[in-house]
């Protein structure tokens, strides 16, 4: 009796992996997991070859440059501005940014909020690891209270303020169609995060408006935990501070931007 093998899971074909280049991330970093989810969603929606990605600067820069997908590299914090231009000029069906939390919420807070206020028809995928991983683990807006980083050696306290809840914050803006927060610390949360990404992309295809998905990922080298302990830290500390779920989901923005008369 012959036995046939069917591949049921593994790397997407959109990764450039000519058996191959090792993915340039730290051991235990979960950002490539999110990259895999994005590529799976792009393949399932049949947008292979039509999507344009705008990566930010940081750890997330290294992901899209090894994707088999059109990309525009930008300055630090400006992917939303560049994605706006790309979307308006090329009329590509799917334009999305891949950013870190420092890129999107700290130095890129102005572009991100401005794009949301304009109701730009783009999608922002943010990978939040609660610190600046590339430069050595400094405090970022999403660092939780009491977390030790390079610049808060005693733990984030009252001098540094509260962590930023950006999906909830942008959910109050009229031009925003969809915001959600997911995590990839368990297989169940991973499937939910994939559903959030798919929903956000669908909002853009429907022309509903700005959509943002924040996904919490582990950062073992800068949290100074083993990868398995990082998952426990996410489960016990980060998910207590940052609840998962959808915060805004509308089919059409409340006040569409008026088109000037010709």
């Amino acid at each position: 009796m012959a036995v046939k093998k069917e591949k049921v899971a593994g790397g997407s074909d959109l990764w450039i992996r000519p058996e191959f280049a090792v993915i340039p991330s730290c051991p235990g970093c979960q950002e490539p997991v999110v990259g895999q989810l994005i590529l799976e969603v792009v393949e399932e929606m049949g947008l292979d070859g039509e999507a344009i990605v705008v990566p930010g600067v940081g750890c997330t820069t290294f992901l899209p440059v090894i994707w088999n997908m059109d990309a525009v590299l930008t300055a630090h914090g400006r992917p939303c501005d560049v994605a706006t231009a790309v979307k308006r000029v090329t009329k590509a069906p799917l334009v999305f940014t891949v950013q870190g939390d420092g890129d999107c919420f700290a130095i890129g807070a102005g572009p991100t909020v401005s794009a949301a206020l304009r109701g730009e028809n783009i999608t922002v995928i943010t990978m939040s690891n609660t610190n600046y991983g590339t430069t050595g683990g400094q405090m970022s807006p999403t660092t939780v209270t009491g977390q030790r980083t390079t610049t808060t050696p005693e733990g984030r306290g009252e001098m540094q303020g509260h962590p930023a809840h950006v999906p909830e914050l942008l959910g109050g803006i009229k031009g925003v169609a969809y915001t959600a927060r997911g995590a990839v610390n368990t297989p169940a949360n991973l499937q939910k995060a994939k559903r959030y990404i798919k929903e956000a992309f669908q909002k853009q295809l429907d022309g509903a408006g700005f959509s943002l998905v924040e996904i919490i990922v582990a950062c073992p080298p800068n949290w100074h935990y083993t990868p398995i302990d990082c998952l426990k830290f996410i489960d016990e500390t980060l998910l207590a501070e940052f609840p998962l779920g959808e915060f805004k989901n509308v089919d059409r923005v409340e006040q569409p931007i008026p088109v000037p008369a010709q």
Partner: protein
Amino acid sequence: MPRGEIVIFDQHCKGCGYCAKFCARDCITHPSGRYSPQGYILPDFSAPDKCNACGICAWMCPDHAIDVYKLVEAEVAA
């Protein structure tokens, strides 16, 4: 009879151990005593008989170092 099979690419693995943690049927052993050329601790597919090709190890693997195959019985061509 085994229903699934995984292939671990040793040159891509960074030894985080997520695959062994999330394998519901304890098919993967980590650490296994083997090391990659870079010095990472490699996992081992130690219990192939129990694998049912659920694919969760490949979902959770950050380095896409695992491919999962489902074994199906095929008709032998006459």
